[in-house]
């Protein structure tokens, strides 16, 4: 079992009016960085790096980072910089990037070079992961949304080739063109770092991931739909002629451990009450569905499924449709992961697990038994949680929770992608 640690690295400014019920209006991509305080940013970047170092000391196998843009809930706009620092200041833990937003890179060769450097500096501890990004990312870096999925796939193929095929070679693709691919940096790991794909519910991403035999890491989705997505992965794997195992399934979920139940509840509530994500229940932010569901980000069919004939001319000015009613478009599933309800609701359905080791461990067991993931990430230190909240939890993870979870992993035979090769299903050397 692979056990990782994650925090989204929220920008916490308690004087901003973005925390709690201050009456300040908050709109997605409607917040000005004129309010951003680099002094606070400096403290927070250093705090989060310190916490990662401590997480390694406490026995976590992996330190997970993620990337978002133009939003206060995640400071990882340039995640690779944090990863490069961790590569140097940590010793043992894997550096797990879940993930770089591939389609927004205009120059994925640059990404291939950065990741190869991180892999070398860490002496082979990089786990790379790639995502399509939410609408925010496409807007922030002005990436043409209808080609997001095509660009994701092409950039993936390109980076893997740049890592694993000796250059120079030429690449004349649909979205990326290079006359000379020969980066003077290659990944430490042969042929390249493991690639894990984080996601929510996008069926075509799950299918693509299963076709590649990459671990699919579900990001804090509810248990039942997560289970269904893993089942879908397994179905596709069967069609591809292999049996998917626990090594192909990963799960990120919110777990905070504390010294007393009172402290645990106080800290647990901070998951959804802080500036981490103004768009969570408990805060006042407004997600703008049109920004999350950009035109073409999720492609529709190539032909409008309904015949739009409007008998307007004969019946006056009002445009009354005569065709059958069609459903309004659904909002992006990625959005829905952010809206899991109040603290009580989320605790009830295991979306937030916060307690003492004694109460937390059985709940983690329930999650492991339900989903059977080979790799898990505990999402902690988020929202309005302070450095002290995080450090108390990390210590208890190390002293009590991780050892217990490792035992569970053995008992339930949950093997991670560093125990069983996801490409061959063969055991890997320790």
């Amino acid at each position, binding site marked *: 079992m692979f056990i990782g640690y994650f925090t989204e690295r929220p920008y916490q400014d308690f004087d901003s009016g973005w925390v709690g019920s201050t009456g300040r209006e908050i709109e997605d991509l409607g917040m000005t960085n004129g309010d951003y305080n680099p002094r606070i940013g400096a403290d927070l970047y250093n705090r989060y790096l310190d916490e990662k170092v401590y997480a390694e000391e406490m026995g976590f196998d992996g330190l997970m980072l993620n990337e978002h843009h133009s939003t206060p809930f995640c400071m990882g706009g340039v995640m690779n910089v944090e990863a490069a620092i961790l590569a140097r200041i940590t010793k043992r833990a894997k550096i797990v990037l879940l993930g770089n937003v591939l389609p927004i890179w205009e120059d994925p060769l640059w990404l291939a070079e950065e990741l190869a450097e991180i892999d070398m500096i860490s002496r082979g501890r990089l786990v790379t992961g790639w995502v399509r990004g939410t609408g925010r990312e496409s807007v922030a870096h002005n990436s*043409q949304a209808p080609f997001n999925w095509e660009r994701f796939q092409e950039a993936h193929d390109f980076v893997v080739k740049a890592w694993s095929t000796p250059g120079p070679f030429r690449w004349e693709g649909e979205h990326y063109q290079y006359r000379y691919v020969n980066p003077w940096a290659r990944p430490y790991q042969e042929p390249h770092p493991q690639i894990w794909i984080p996601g929510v519910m996008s069926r075509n991403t799950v299918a693509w991931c299963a076709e590649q035999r990459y671990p699919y890491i579900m990001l804090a989705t509810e248990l039942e739909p997560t289970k269904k997505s893993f089942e879908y992965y397994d179905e596709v794997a069967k069609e591809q002629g292999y049996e998917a195992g626990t090594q192909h399934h990963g799960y990120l979920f919110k777990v905070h451990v504390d010294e007393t139940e009172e402290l645990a509840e106080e800290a647990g509530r901070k998951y959804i009450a802080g500036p981490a994500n103004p768009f969570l229940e408990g805060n006042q932010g407004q997600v703008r569905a049109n920004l999350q569901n950009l*035109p073409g980000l999720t492609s529709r069919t190539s*032909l*409008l499924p309904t015949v739009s004939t*409007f008998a*307007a*001319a*004969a019946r006056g000015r009002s445009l009354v449709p005569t065709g059958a009613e*069609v459903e309004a478009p659904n909002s992006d599933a990625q959005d829905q992961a952010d809206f899991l309800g109040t603290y009580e609701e989320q605790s009830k359905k295991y979306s937030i697990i916060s307690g003492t080791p004694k109460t937390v461990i059985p709940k983690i067991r329930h999650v492991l038994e339900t989903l059977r993931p080979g790799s898990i990430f505990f999402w902690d230190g988020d929202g309005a949680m302070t450095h002290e909240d995080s450090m108390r939890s990390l210590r208890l993870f190390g002293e009590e929770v991780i050892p217990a979870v490792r035992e569970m992993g053995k008992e339930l035979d949950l093997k991670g992608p560093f125990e069983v090769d996801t490409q061959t299903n063969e055991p890997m050397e320790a």
Partner: protein
Amino acid sequence: MTTQTETHSETTVQVAGGSVRVLQDGAGEPVVVLHHSTGNPGWIPFYEQLAAGHAVSVPDLPGYGQSERPAWARSTRDMAILVRRTIEALGLGSVHLVGLGFGGWVAAELASMSDHDLTSLTLIGAAGIQPEEGEIADVIFYEFEEYVKLGFSSDQAYAEVFGDEAAPELKELWDFSREMTARLTWKPWMFNRQLPHLLSETQVRTLLLWGEEDRVTPIGVAQAYEAALPNATLQVLPGLGHLLELEAADTAAAAVAAHIAGG
């Protein structure tokens, strides 16, 4: 293949490997109308009034409505070439070309290539050139219904055409259409820096018809077209928004008909 409805006929032609649906009615000199980025809502009163004295053809632009998507198309210029071929496939000869909003940009691109087969050109609230002041409204920052509302001089004017809330089928059309639009224009948004230069040789008699209250395409775009085109006249309609052919079909059709007749 042609089918007849209560108000108009529908025909389909093949262009560059894809089918293009065209709505048609009326008799007289041929008029071709190119719809907005939000797609063609159907046979609207504006078309009907033009069809009282002309043979009006309204294609669903390739990739919009019932016309197949040219997955390879990447620019408004690609679209202009497809429209030129659609007009040829329909056997219309020289036409009066009318473009609405984004369709106006397509029409301007088409005219910039050659204008020997255009009898007249009408650009209504057309995109395509960067205005000196302001910006062409960006659909990315609006719910698509809000974006359509922005096309009217007021919410009340919107409600008179679409009701308080538009029918689901229309919303689907708008959402579907913006995907195709985003495949053709993204950066820069809704204009082509080359276009003003290319229009300098375009002699066709052109009417620039703008709503005074146009909140989508600033009047600066009209002024830029006026400067770029050797033979253009700007007419501003007071009190109307971007979708003036929906807001005031009579006024819009009369202005276009007068321009067509003016030659």
